[in-house]
């Protein structure tokens, strides 16, 4: 049964073959996992070289000393951390262990070129996991032209299940859907008029174009991207120190989306902007992507531990965002499900291990000019003080001289600090070790930078860099990045991905519902030069996107998760958009784009939860109270409660898919939070000031809050509520204004306000 298969290569003159009894023990117990193509723990036991080289934790054997050999510790079962073979495989018998021990004690002689093959495992299953296979352009079903390709794929599948797509949604629904999806804001009154007025062919496409050209497009998609970038305005951990310059990275993302930067460039600048030949401040700023990792300034921490944790996060985030892989699993051990070894994890780690966190002065610009002006004023003041000191010295008044010297020293210390941006750059070279069990104190074998073997090779020189890695990610051979990214875009417009596990394209992720469509999209995106706006428009002009989202009993039964896209999905908006929609409906929204993060009102007692109450919440003034949700200061240990109540991620790790919960705390927020009540007051005042009947004012209010006019039933309910409100408030000061405020509060709490139909 145990056939020793010898792959005899040119054997040297003094070649010593492996003792056949020893070979049998290794073949029966070890070689299945420790061999070419699957070196668990970095160890190969199928060749003499592999045995001599050892694994991630170090040498496997010490010739002549079985008691000091890791191999013997592993197979003897004396070491709970290193017990081999792993369960459920059978342990070695005493006789087998004895054969190994005595062979080691006799010098472990073996130096010929035999390659052992595991007993009973001659052939390997060969077909790789779907996501690791190259992206191919599939044939579009039927004779559809490419514009309708998306629908051709979807309809073919629906038809095969005996289902039909839903009809197109009505115009007001489409208008609000497009503007919410592309800008995160409802259409303005002006846009509503424009779209209503345009009844010609192509009106929908023109409307999509207008939304894409809006500066709010960048804000919307930046916010999506910031979830991946785990962006926040503070360090995290105990001290959770402020990061007043983090916003520059956020603004870079907004600008990149607005400028429709091709995605391959977008990826390149964020991962390796410092290394692109001829790179400038903007590319440096992009590397802020990997400066969003947590920093622990707690007293007594081991700085190396948290440096390593930041690098780990950079590796895991890069793998998740661009490759859709749960590479983090192999930080401590070989991946349990996917073909990644622990050694390969640290080869990826090596790309980031020599990086340094550098805060660079921002380039020329308004901010620099402000600083320069302050600096000039300061220099003038220093000059004056120095002059005064000179005069005093001449006068011989020792006391006055001492005082002036003190002033001067203090003044010099208080020079205005230049505005800086957080960047990542190459630092001094550091060797990368495999960390045994992921423990940074337990250094294993040294590895160099490389990408996982199951993916296409990195065709570069001997010492690949972060820049090479970034290019490889969006290279034509890479089967993952384009699929992962188009799937992510798709999920934002359809409510779920073609691969539902956006963050896991490995063997434990969900299989794609429409594999051919996914490949067609991935291929098209790359073919179009990673043109994001063009890609999004391709999705949005499809009939699938324009379908009604109404629930259908037949679909509900056969396809409760709407995997087949027989209708659009009705989606609760993200936390930031919930805020934005209410501010917009009530006319309070500031449309200012970019700049430092702001602190809108929040309930008392929140920032007191931070370390020693250190993160004071000083409310912003003026229009900064009413900025969009993405500009709200994000303090990691006491995040803005409204955002968290509506499932914003905690910004500690990369998140590709937000939860959508429904809780009573959300209801309380929309009903009673001071910000939302301010919206109600403002909308109430607008409605009260409108001319026309109650009915027309109520209709106006409904349009503002939900984007659609009320039905007859709704009109009656609203009118009755207005009457009740007037009756209850009768005789009070400003009773009419109060009545319209509570009506506006009702309108802003309607079920469909925070929903994209």
């Amino acid at each position, binding site marked *: 049964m145990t056939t020793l298969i010898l792959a005899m290569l040119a054997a040297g003159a003094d070649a010593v073959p492996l003792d056949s009894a020893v070979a049998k023990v290794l073949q029966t117990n070890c070689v299945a996992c420790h061999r070419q193509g699957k070196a668990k723990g970095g160890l190969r036991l199928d060749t003499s070289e592999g045995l001599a080289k050892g694994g991630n934790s170090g040498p496997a054997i010490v010739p002549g000393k079985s008691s000091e050999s890791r191999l013997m510790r592993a197979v003897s079962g004396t070491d709970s951390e290193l017990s081999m073979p792993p369960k459920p495989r059978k342990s070695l018998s005493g006789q087998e262990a004895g054969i190994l021990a005595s062979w080691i004690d006799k010098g472990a002689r073996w130096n010929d070129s035999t390659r052992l093959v595991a007993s009973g495992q001659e052939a390997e299953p060969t077909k790789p996991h779907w996501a690791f296979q190259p992206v191919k352009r599939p044939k579009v079903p039927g004779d559809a032209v490419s514009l309708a390709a998306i629908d051709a794929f979807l309809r073919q599948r629906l038809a095969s299940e005996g289902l039909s797509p839903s009809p197109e949604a009505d115009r007001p629904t489409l208008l609000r859907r497009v503007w919410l999806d592309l800008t995160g804001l409802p259409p303005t009154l002006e846009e509503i008029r424009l779209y209503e007025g345009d009844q010609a062919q192509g009106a929908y496409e023109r409307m999509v174009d207008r939304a894409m050209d809006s500066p709010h497009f960048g804000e919307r998609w930046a916010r999506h991207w910031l979830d991946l970038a785990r962006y926040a305005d503070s360090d*995290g951990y105990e001290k959770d120190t402020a990061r007043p310059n983090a916003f520059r990275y956020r603004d870079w993302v907004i600008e990149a989306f607005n400028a429709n930067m091709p995605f391959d460039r977008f990826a390149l600048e964020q991962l390796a902007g410092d290394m692109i030949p001829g790179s400038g401040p903007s590319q440096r700023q992009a590397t802020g992507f990997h400066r969003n990792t947590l920093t622990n300034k707690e007293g007594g921490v081991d700085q190396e531990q948290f440096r390593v944790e930041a690098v780990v996060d950079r590796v895991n985030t890069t793998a998740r965002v661009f490759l859709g892989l749960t590479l983090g699993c192999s930080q401590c051990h070989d991946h349990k499900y996917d073909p990644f070894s622990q050694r390969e994890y640290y080869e990826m780690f090596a790309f980031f291990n020599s990086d340094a966190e550098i805060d660079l002065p921002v380039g020329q610009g308004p901010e620099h000019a402000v600083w320069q002006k302050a600096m000039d004023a300061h220099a003038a003041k220093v000059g004056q003080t120095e002059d005064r000191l000179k005069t005093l010295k001449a006068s011989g008044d020792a006391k006055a001289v001492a005082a002036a010297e003190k002033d001067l020293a203090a003044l010099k210390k208080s020079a205005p600090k230049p505005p800086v941006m957080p960047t990542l750059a190459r630092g001094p070279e550091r060797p990368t070790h495999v960390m045994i069990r992921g423990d940074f104190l337990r250094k294993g074998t040294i590895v160099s930078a490389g990408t996982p073997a199951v993916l296409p090779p990195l065709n570069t020189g001997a010492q690949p860099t972060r820049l090479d890695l970034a290019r490889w990610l969006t290279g034509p051979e890479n089967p993952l990045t384009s699929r992962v990214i188009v799937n992510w875009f798709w999920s934002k417009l359809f409510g779920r991905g073609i691969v539902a596990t956006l963050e896991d394209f490995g063997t434990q992720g969900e299989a794609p519902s429409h594999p051919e469509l996914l490949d067609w999209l991935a291929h098209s995106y790359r073919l179009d030069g990673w043109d994001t706006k063009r890609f999004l428009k391709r999705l949005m002009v499809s009939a699938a996107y324009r379908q009604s989202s109404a629930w259908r009993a037949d679909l509900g039964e056969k396809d409760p998760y709407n995997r087949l896209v027989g209708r659009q999905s009705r989606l609760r908006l993200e936390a930031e958009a919930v805020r934005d929609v209410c501010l917009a409906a009530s006319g309070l929204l500031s449309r200012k784009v970019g700049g430092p993060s702001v602190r809108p009102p929040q309930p008392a007692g929140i920032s007191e939860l931070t370390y020693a109450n250190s993160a004071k919440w000083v409310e912003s003034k003026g229009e900064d109270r009413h900025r969009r949700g993405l500009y709200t200061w994000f303090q990691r240990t006491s995040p803005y409660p409204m955002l968290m109540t509506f499932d914003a991620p905690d910004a500690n790790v990369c998140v590709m898919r937000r939860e959508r919960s429904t809780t009573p705390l959300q209801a309380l927020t929309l009903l009673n939070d001071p910000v939302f009540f301010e919206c109600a007051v403002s909308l109430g005042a607008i409605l009260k000031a409108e001319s026309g009947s109650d009915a027309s004012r109520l209709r106006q209010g409904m349009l503002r809050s939900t984007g659609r006019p009320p039905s007859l039933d*709704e009109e009656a309910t*609203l009118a009755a509520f207005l009457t009740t409100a007037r009756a209850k408030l009768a005789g009070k000061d400003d009773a009419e204004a109060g009545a319209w405020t509570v009506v506006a509060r009702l309108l802003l709490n309607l079920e469909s306000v925070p929903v994209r139909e």
Partner: protein
Amino acid sequence: MMKGPVMNPVHGLARRGFLTSAASGTGLMALAHQLAGAAPVANPLSPKPSHAAPKAKACICIYLEGGPSQIDLFDPKPKLNELHGQKLPESLTKNVRFAFIQKEGARVLGSPRTFARHGGCGMELSDLLPYLSRHADDIALVRSMHTEAFNHHPGQLLMNTGAPVFGRPSMGSWLNYGLGSPSRDLPGYVVLSSGRGTSGGTSNWGSGFLPSTYQGVLFRNQGDPVLNLSNPPGVDADIQEATIRALSSLGAGQYKHLGDPEIASRVESYELAFRMQASAPELIDLSREDKRTIERYGLDRKEPAIKASRGGGPGQFRSFATNCLLARRLVERGVRFVNLFHASWDHHSNLDNELTHNCQMADQPVAALLDDLKARGMLDSTLVLWLSEFGRTPLGENRGGSSNVTGRDHHPFAFSIWMAGGGIKGGQVLGKTDEIGWSILEDPVHVNDLHATILHLFGMDHLRLTYRFQGRDFRLTDVGGKVVNKLLA
């Protein structure tokens, strides 16, 4: 068993609202739902069966942030007074990392505390805990806890979520996810905080990757107990009720029109919010508690002055005592998990004064809580925990080489916690440390073991309570955990 929303259709449906839950009352939505002939849907927080018959039905977890000194409270080490001022053999400290201690000059620090035996079991407890000492026969004292984390935040995350990293669900989230909550008008997981604020903030009671329905809801003991619970100025209860009714009616119409169960869920959440507006103020209104109860908990005790801000400044005695009383009231009203935090017990310096002060604050109300639960017949089904992220060193802390040693550094290798009620075998000391309290000699209990035991008391198998996230089935006990049978009644 249970999986994440994408992986398992059942969970997705379970997310869809409050319709047929006990909490739904007779809202308009329930009616509309019946009219629409839709299948019943479950409230994500409605009670669910456990794996086995539970002993504990609710948990009050008292978390003393910072690492109270076990040597001065729970684990007497007279040897330290003999060795006071001496160096430890290098064999002990060789491979150890400290937060602040400088190894070269580190010296043993004795304890001024006296210990006496208490109860039928003869448990040795410090003179700083006179009230708690009367409950020696109720509590199981574990002197052999250990953890890997020796910095606060990772340590807190490990103790509260089972792993020293951000983003994992906390104990209370797991229990609510697995078992739901019998409370009709209140959230199933309530957090009460006092002191200066914990290092970990909300991550200590977060729901991590679980839906936010399961996250701890921070009640405050001043102002609104729940954020935004009060109506805005000018909106009275009548108008609020009319608003909720109108919203229900409008929601019902929309639901009939579109048929999306999520609409029902959202409108039901408004109805629960409205009930919470009514029930939460009643909860924190202590005016109907009898005077003796208030006295027993020590709400109005005189608070000694202390020159230290570590414990949160003046006002903590009342705040902590109020939280203990609120904890009982929450459990009485069906809340599954109450998490009480106080920060901080991180006595790197001035240990004697500040530990004395904190114990004066905590000892009486915690003991009163145990009394109260017992008197009401609730202790058998209510698990009470006294936890922190680690303990403190037998060595004095000589930060920066200082010779003025008045505190202790972080000690993760051996520390003490206790448990009572809810199926715990009281009147026992589990585990033994060496004569200076450096290492564990018997019955080591890892944080994951503690969590496995807690879940077991609730009838849950820690290996089967899982949630799929990012391609992995996660557990509260991460990749470890063994039920500590000796702790079970």
